[in-house]
């Protein structure tokens, strides 16, 4: 039985700007299980990244977050082992102590742009060390404390330890000569190496979950393959959950066990990866899958494309937001009634009037 790690319930994120209100995320509901990978796919502007930022309370101003994000934190209790504590992240102060412990420490994040998300004036060792000083605790060994279970006190890492851990992390993400690279600045590294450093920073604090926001989009296929491999390998060794955000259907097929498909701030379908690719239910998912060219298939055929464009976020269509582009548009229904989140099978949900009695 998979154990939930982060439960997102009816999440809304709104931005009130001069031209009106943008509903960047509009009622997202999903669960990320411990040690598993959830893929989130959708086109740009569909709310993938904002959802990820909401989980870490990093939604930029003037964003307003409502709904619930429940983080199941494992806590060690004296004598009786572990219990699970529920933290509602949306209620936390975005600058408070609590979220700062979670952000980077218990939930790590990798950003899309390895070029611009590393501070250019620090060496990789300093960058990894920064996370370590904030989050990594090592047990204090006192005389007489022989058994690991009895160790109660912890302390922050020292400078020397941080450097050692940094070298070890660089080695684990496959950077050659980590003893030298720990003193390199980001501009001395290639794009793939920078992304590895990002991964090393995110994983150095042994998070329970990693949010990867388009981690390979800026990279070449050969480097992408290396990075995906490293992420999978590390996931196995540390039992970490991954929320993998991408628009690349090939990447998500390889990484994710479960997939959420987003369109205009709404999760339109959620199912296992196999179901999404072999038996998609929502018309948007189907259209998306048909519009990509497949390597190895006969070339020179026309692609089936989704007609029209992504609608203007200030001026959303009535009813189902996908109806103007939908091949299965039902006049009189889809343009009037907003579809609800409906369970359509075992462990799969969709937001479409095809599966509702109206």
């Amino acid at each position, binding site marked *: 039985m998979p154990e939930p790690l982060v439960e997102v319930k009816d999440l809304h994120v709104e931005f009130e700007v001069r031209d009106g209100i943008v509903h960047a995320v509009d009622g997202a509901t999903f669960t990320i299980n411990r040690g598993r990978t959830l893929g989130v796919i959708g086109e740009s502007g569909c709310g993938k990244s904002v959802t990820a930022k909401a989980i870490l309370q990093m939604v930029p101003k003037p964003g307003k977050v409502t709904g619930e994000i429940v983080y199941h934190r494992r806590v060690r209790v004296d004598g009786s082992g572990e219990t699970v504590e529920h933290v509602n992240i949306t209620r936390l102060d975005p600058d408070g102590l609590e979220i700062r412990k979670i952000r980077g420490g218990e939930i790590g994040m990798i950003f899309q742009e390895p070029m611009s998300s590393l501070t250019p004036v620090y060496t990789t060792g300093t960058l990894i060390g920064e996370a370590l000083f904030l989050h990594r605790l090592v047990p204090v060994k006192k005389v007489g404390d022989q058994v690991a279970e009895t160790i109660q006190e912890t302390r922050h890492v020292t400078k020397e330890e941080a450097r050692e851990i940094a070298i070890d992390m660089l080695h684990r993400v496959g950077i050659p000569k980590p003893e030298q690279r720990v003193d390199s600045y980001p501009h001395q590294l290639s794009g793939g190496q920078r992304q590895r450093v990002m991964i090393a920073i995110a994983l150095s604090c042994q998070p329970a979950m990693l949010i990867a926001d388009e981690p390979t989009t800026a990279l*070449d*296929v050969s480097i992408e393959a290396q990075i995906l491999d490293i992420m999978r390998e590390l996931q196995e060794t540390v039992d970490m959950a991954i929320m993998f955000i991408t628009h690349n*259907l*090939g990447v998500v097929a390889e990484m*994710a066990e479960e997939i959420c498909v987003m369109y205009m701030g709404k999760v339109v379908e959620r199912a296992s990866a196999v179901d999404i690719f072999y038996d998609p239910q929502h018309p948007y998912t189907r259209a998306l899958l048909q519009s*990509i060219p*497949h390597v190895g298939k006969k*070339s020179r055929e026309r692609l089936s494309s989704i007609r029209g464009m992504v609608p203007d976020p200030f001026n959303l269509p009535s009813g189902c937001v996908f109806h103007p582009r939908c091949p299965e548009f039902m006049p009189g229904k889809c343009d009037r009634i907003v579809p609800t989140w409906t369970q359509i099978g075992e462990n799969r949900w969709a937001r479409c009037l095809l599966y509702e009695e109206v």
Partner: protein
Amino acid sequence: MAEQVQAGDNILLDVKGLKKYFPIQRGLLHRVVGNVKAVDDISFFVREGETLGLVGESGCGKTTASRTVIRLYEPTAGDIHFKTTKLSPDGKEQMVNVRELNREQMKLIRQDISMIFQDPVNSLNPRMSVFDIIAEPMVIHGRGTGPEAEETVVRLLQRVGLRREHIRRYPHEFSGGQRQRIGIARALALGPRLVFCDEPVSALDVSIQAQTLNLLQDLQADFDLSYVFVAHDLSVVQHISDRVAVMYVGKIAEMAGADVLYNNPLHPYTEALMSAVPKPDPKYESERIIMKGDVADPSNPPPGCYFHPRCDYAIDICEQEEPEFRELEPDHFVACHRAHELQLRGV
């Protein structure tokens, strides 16, 4: 190395031994201390009405190669033969060496060759209206002004799927896909024969990407265009191309018909690149070849075959001698010492 290239008479563009080196300058006197060999002795050809895909990792010289062909960069060496009617007084087709043309002749040739750029945001001047953007090439070449030009622009706009009322708008009023359509309309304004498409869909979303690819194919049929399609997305390139050339560190590793290349590669780099493409199929058991290390540095490439430090099949000769780019099978060119003996896996 491309003798039979001349045998075919439907060759539109024939590039031989093209080189583009960017000097590295150091010190007060700007002494040249080395060269970035962005394009290093490549040969390829484009037949009339076909699409040649150019793939490779970033920094391999795809874009430089296409820019050097139309002399946006001055070639360091090599010949670029292009078939055109623009330079002969009687309007007959002839092969001209683009590299030897002067400024005025080059201007005439540029009516025949145009380019679609990667970034639909930065390649359109934000202070020009759609009409000005698309009409600019016509103005430069003295091809129509006033209402006539407007009619042409409207026709082009409609052809790429935009509407008449868009003509007075500015680029910021359009989405990424629409902007790319404006870029395509501009490229077609002078009725070119050859269009260089430099990553035309890589900045677009999946659904918009499909629309744009379909549009490019329709236009090719309607206007009898040839494309050189530069991209890093292998599935897109296979979809749109008749033939594909794979580049690695300034050189062409392999060039063949798209389906042949994808199903029966002869170069280990092509094989590794194919296997690295993530397949949109969760049940697919990947047997990926993970290439070791990073792409070679074009200013300081390894000796012998540039790919040998990352190649699983490398033997002694690969470290010493540079492989020749040869036609191993009809219309299948490869630069690998062991191409004839290796059994490589396609997609």
